[in-house]
């Protein structure tokens, strides 16, 4: 899981004319983890202490000069390096007050960036693609600089990474509608060129080292995040030939209208990407968010709304994200934990062995462990997949206009054709979104079976297509609701609660016409049938069996007969709701939730709804107490603890209402009796425990007597 913490404002921005420019050209780490060098796009360089939000030092160049590259800190020499007017390199220390009096030298070509290299001398990247070490350049500033790139080429992005303990410089250059990635390494001396697929230049790039190469993440204006793996060759040598660089779609973000203009992505670790300037999937367009997405699960992990305009700039340094927005530069600490399936889903939906048996879930291997072999399959399938992506876009366009029947046909064809899980995962979300938005726009259009099929493909989750479930509720498509509740791992408490409300307020007559999943229905049928059957037997032979009041299948307890009489514990009460309503309520019971959030939303239930639901829960509890649920086999059934938790939550949320309502009195008194019985049972168990312990002790001390004759053997 990833989390974003409280944002703090580091400084106020000096927003340029027109407000399109944040006024910051770069943020680089400084002497320690808590300091950053912030370079103004105009004339000044400032060092901030982040935790104190305090400037430690600030240097400004003379009027008329401009800072053309972000200043960096060279930890080897404890000096700051900056380039002014593209050609003048300035080096100064903390103790220097005036930057003009500090060391400066003019080089023979325009400098693009000075890049700090961990544990080594900084590198200077010239605008025409040549690279020099800073110390060798300063030793001979006027040395000739070769041109690697043609004149019309523009460098878009550059970075230095430590790969296999060697610094590796990479930069993107754009020329003639073609984007090239150039990589250079010093030991062994090597250079390579790659052509990025797609042609268009990415909005933002980010790189991470991985074993045997570099992972390059590119965010495009279409909202897609692609990943490319750039191999590092062991042997040196300059490869002049331009090689194609395959890419894989990691995320397809909802963009809304138009294209992204100012957005930025930074990869935080191998599973998380921070994005700024991309709309939040459930908030409307036009709002600006900082989001952390999990690329393995395509789930949104954390989001934070950024007030004011976003400039599409984002830096990450030492566990903190730096985002200029509005009129301030915010620092947001974040945390990314190792991603696991359980963490990504919040809470596991259902404990026990029936999860894999249900067949609704495919077994998901550990994602981080699975990457190496997945990667190999990815490579082999790359070609074919790209073709399919092309077709996918076309397909989405078709779906937007086709009729409901056609849509149904297309979707089933799509799902059967594309056997590749990965592609479906990416595509299904988009497809569902398209369908849902179309449904919202055209009241008459509702492709029920297509949506059911999509949900059944298990590629959807709530966050991928948040409006699907609400749409289903609006359309009173309870079958779809049931599937969604079963399949989606991440249903928010508010939505679960609105489903509950809808189910409770719907009349039994309407619900009984809906066709629901057969297994769940069978389970409830079994419960209801069992109770009537047993009642019949009781009447037949006139024998009143002692009811068991213990929970979860314990042995019979020896409580007083008065407590066990039928009148005090209506365990055989009739099911207060209809068959299908009970099935749907069971699904709600099995939804994962966090009680403090759920409690808030539960308060919105009306008193009759609460009482009905409580009665149903009480009915279930009674059934479970009789051990009947073990006789009725079902793949999915609410657990005893889930029932009890829901009873507690409901009573908590509506306690005053329940106490005041006369019709709830009987119910409450029954529940009270249940609790009292439980307490009694537990106190009796406690006593037994004491007795048993005493017995155990007595047994131990039994052999301690004054005298005994024993036989021992020594070897």
């Amino acid at each position, binding site marked *: 899981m990833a989390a974003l913490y409280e944002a703090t404002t580091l400084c106020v921005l000096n927003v340029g004319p027109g407000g399109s420019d944040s006024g910051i050209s770069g943020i680089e780490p400084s002497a320690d983890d808590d300091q950053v060098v912030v370079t103004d796009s105009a004339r000044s360089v400032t060092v901030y202490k982040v935790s104190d939000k305090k400037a430690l030092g600030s240097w400004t160049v003379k009027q008329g000069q401009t800072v053309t590259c972000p200043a960096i800190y060279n930890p080897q020499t404890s000096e700051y390096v900056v380039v002014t007017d593209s050609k003048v390199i300035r080096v100064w220390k903390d103790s220097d007050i005036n930057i003009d009096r500090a060391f400066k030298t003019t080089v023979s070509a325009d400098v693009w960036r000075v890049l700090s290299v961990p544990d080594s001398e900084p590198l200077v990247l010239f605008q025409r693609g040549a690279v020099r070490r800073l110390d060798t350049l300063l030793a001979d500033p006027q040395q000739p600089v070769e041109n690697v790139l043609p004149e019309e080429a523009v460098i878009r992005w550059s970075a230095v990474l430590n790969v296999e303990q060697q610094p590796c410089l990479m930069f993107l250059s754009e020329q003639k509608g073609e984007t090239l990635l150039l990589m250079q390494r010093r030991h062994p001396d090597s250079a390579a060129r790659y052509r990025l697929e797609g042609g268009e230049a990415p909005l933002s790039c980010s790189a991470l080292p991985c074993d045997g190469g570099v992972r390059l993440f590119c965010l495009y204006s279409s909202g897609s995040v692609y990943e490319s793996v750039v191999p590092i060759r062991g042997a040196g040598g300059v490869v002049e030939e331009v090689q194609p660089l395959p890419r894989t779609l990691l995320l397809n973000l909802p963009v809304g209208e138009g294209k992204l203009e100012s957005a930025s992505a930074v990869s935080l670790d191998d599973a998380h990407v921070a994005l700024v300037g991309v709309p939040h999937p459930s908030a409307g367009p036009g709002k600006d968010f900082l989001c952390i997405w999990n690329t393995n699960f395509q789930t949104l992990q954390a989001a934070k709304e950024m007030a004011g305009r976003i400039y599409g700039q984002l830096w990450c340094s030492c566990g903190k994200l730096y985002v200029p927005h509005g009129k301030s530069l915010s620092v947001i600490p974040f945390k990314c934990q190792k991603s696991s399936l359980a963490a990504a889903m919040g809470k596991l939906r259902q404990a026990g062995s029936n999860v894999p048996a249900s067949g609704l879930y495919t077994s998901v291997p550990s994602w981080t462990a699975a990457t190496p072999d997945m990667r190999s399959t990815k490579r082999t399938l790359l070609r074919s997949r790209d073709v399919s992506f092309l077709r996918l876009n076309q397909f989405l366009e078709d779906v937007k206009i086709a009729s409901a029947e056609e849509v149904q046909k297309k979707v089933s064809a799509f799902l059967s054709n594309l056997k590749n899980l990965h592609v479906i995962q990416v595509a299904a979300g988009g497809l569902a979104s398209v369908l849902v938005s179309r449904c919202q726009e055209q009241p008459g259009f509702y492709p029920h079976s297509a949506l059911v099929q999509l949900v059944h493909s298990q590629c959807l989750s709530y966050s991928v297509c948040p409006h699907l479930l609400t749409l289903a509720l609006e359309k009173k498509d309870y079958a779809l609701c049931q599937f969604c509740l079963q399949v989606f791992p991440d249903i928010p408490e508010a939505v679960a609660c609105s489903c509950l409300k809808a189910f409770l307020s719907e009349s039994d007559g309407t619900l009984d016409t809906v066709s629901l999943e057969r297994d769940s229905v069978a389970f409830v049928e079994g419960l209801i049938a069992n109770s009537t059957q047993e009642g019949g037997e009781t009447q037949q032979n006139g024998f009143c069996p002692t009811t068991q009041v213990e929970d979860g299948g314990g042995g019979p307890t020896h409580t007083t007969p008065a407590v066990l009489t039928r009148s005090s514990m209506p365990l055989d009460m009739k099911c207060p709701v209809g068959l299908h309503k009970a099935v749907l309520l069971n699904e709600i019971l099995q939804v994962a939730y966090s009680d403090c959030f759920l409690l808030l939303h539960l308060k919105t239930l009306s008193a009759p709804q609460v009482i009905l639901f409580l009665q149903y829960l009480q009915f279930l509890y009674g059934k479970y107490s009789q051990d009947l649920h073990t006789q009725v086999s079902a793949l999915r059934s609410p657990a005893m603890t889930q029932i009890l938790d829901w009873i507690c939550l409901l009573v908590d949320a509506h306690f005053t209402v329940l106490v005041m309502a006369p019709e709830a009195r009987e119910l409450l008194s029954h529940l009270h009796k249940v609790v009292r019985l439980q307490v009694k049972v537990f106190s009796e168990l406690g006593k037994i425990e004491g007795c048993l312990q005493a017995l155990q002790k007595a047994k131990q001390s039994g*052999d*301690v*007597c*004054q*005298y*005994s*004759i*024993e*036989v*021992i*053997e*020594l*070897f």
Partner: protein
Amino acid sequence: MGEFTVHRVRFFHYMPSGICAMAFNRRTERLAVARTDGSVELYSRTDHFFQEKVVPGRQQRSIQALCWVGKRLFGAGLSGEIAEFDLDNLRLKFSQDAYGGPIWSIVCNPQGTHLAAGCEDGTVKLFEILEDQIRFERNMGGQKGRIISLAWHSSGTKIAAGMIDMIKVFDLDSGNAVQRLLVERGSRMQQSQECVVWSVLFLSDIIVSGDSAGKVKMWDVNTGTLIKNHQVTEWDVLTLSVSQDETSLFAGTSEGTVVQFQLLDVVLGQEEKEWVRTRTFKNHTHDVIALAEADTVIISGGMDTQLVVRPLLDKLDFKSRDSSLLKILFPQRSLVSCAKKAGLLLFQYPTHLELWRLGDTEGHGPPGCILPVSRNPEKLLHLKIKGEDHVCCSAVAPCGEWIAYSTTSGIRLYRLQRDNKNVSITKVPKLPKVLRHAHQLCFSPDSSHLYGTTSSAVHVVALTSAGCKFEHSLKPKSGSTHPVRLLAVSSDGKFLASANSNSEIHIYNMHKLKAHCTVPVYRSGVSAMGIHPETNNLVIVHADHQIFEFSIEQMQYTDWSRRVQKEGLHHVWLERDTPVINVTFNPQNPNHVILHDSYMFCIIDQSLPLPDRKSQFHNQLTLKSLPEAERLKHSHAFKECKLYQPLLCVDMLENQSLVVVERPLLDITTNLPAPVRQKKFAT
């Protein structure tokens, strides 16, 4: 190896007494420990705190303070008398009434010429120490209020006296109190209770006091002002002790903790120093009443009857006996004597003796089972001691017909007659005059003679049905006057070995009634010895756990003994912290030597190879798991059994069944008085 039937005896209700005073003699490295029953024990610091001598106690005698003057040991208590202990004869040398009521504390001056006693009547009484007595010199002080504690300044000119609510400093030249330091009472409810200064120390420039308000206070000597106040406990600080170089200080509290203070630099490398509370040791359950500091260890004792030796150099890399915590709870001598032929046990309590007949069984069973007892053990005799002195030694004859015991004032011999149900006892009159009091008593194997030792000689008394007759006195050739700790008789009655507290072993030929030889003296005390019934080899175990076997007939160490010394004993054996108390033999198997200490017994099979350094010492479980054919390959001479502990006695009867006398720790702790109440969570 074999099966043994074990009589597991737990009806010896031995109860150690609490420790009430301690004194450590730095010159001789001896620790004197006084217990509440009036007995005084001497431990040797150099010999792993081996209990060398015990001066038996006496009813009504309570010792509040002990004090070494050179090699002489003085004690004083609430009887109001100052006494010197005769460490050769293990009894009182003299005692002199101080005429000041109960005495709470005595100290001697650094020069060793005078004793000061703090009395109930509020006076400090000075005594001059003479050759064989002490002489009253003068009184100091004399107002109301008892003097609880005393400390002498190293210059010898000032004495600090801890009283109730105050400390007074007396000047010896003038005899007047020159300073009066008021100690404030405790906070809260203790405000109304007076504050007792339980202990004072007079260092070169400060006075340290420990009081009943739980505080350790440092006072300036010159100005009499309070420099520092450490609240150490909620309860009382009962005792204080300081190292010789005055850089480390210990305080014992009622909670059972010992708190260390050290004089440390305030700033590293600068002159200024301050007393800082550094470590807290909690090894006692009850009040720590006495503390003694011996260079690298702190020794503490109190109401829970344990003597705890806590090494201070606990950062040592290697583990050895000197660097590990030592707890002495059980006596290092045997309080049980066993009549092997008759199957009787004689238990020695301080004021009475008990004679028990062991039970019997007819059952047989596999190892590990408890056999049905066909005849229960029976208490034959409960013999109360005449007079106020406590028993110092006792013995029962192997045939079970004679019982003898000795106190410091006399020896009594009884004849026991048993028919089917009745036991009758008659005192044997007219014991020889030379045998007025004995340190050790033992009977010859045929029960025809009684041997008793005084510090100078072994006396032989012949026993007949008519009475007893003095036969001879055997004196060691060396003329040493050290008290005899142990006696051992050969089973043919020919040889008698006696070991004294100076670890000299003399062997006498009892047929010729003359000295036979002496065993070379080893540096460590003799903790147990026994003569082999067949070979007449003397097996000697020392306090440092070295084992020697000396052939009496050839007057030299045996080959086995030489092998042991050459190969060396296993380090696990040498690291054991309680000394071996008894050596006995298996009549069926001449190779077996049975040893025991408080926590195990061990059968040494002399026919097997000794364990080498790398082999596993406790290998019983390993051997048990091996098939029988392979056992011999892995077994070594030491067969240790820890099934029964703590042990007071292990002996072997003639019918090859073992007798173990256990005293469970729980029984001792339940008989202790309740400790001070401590606030525990939720109580």
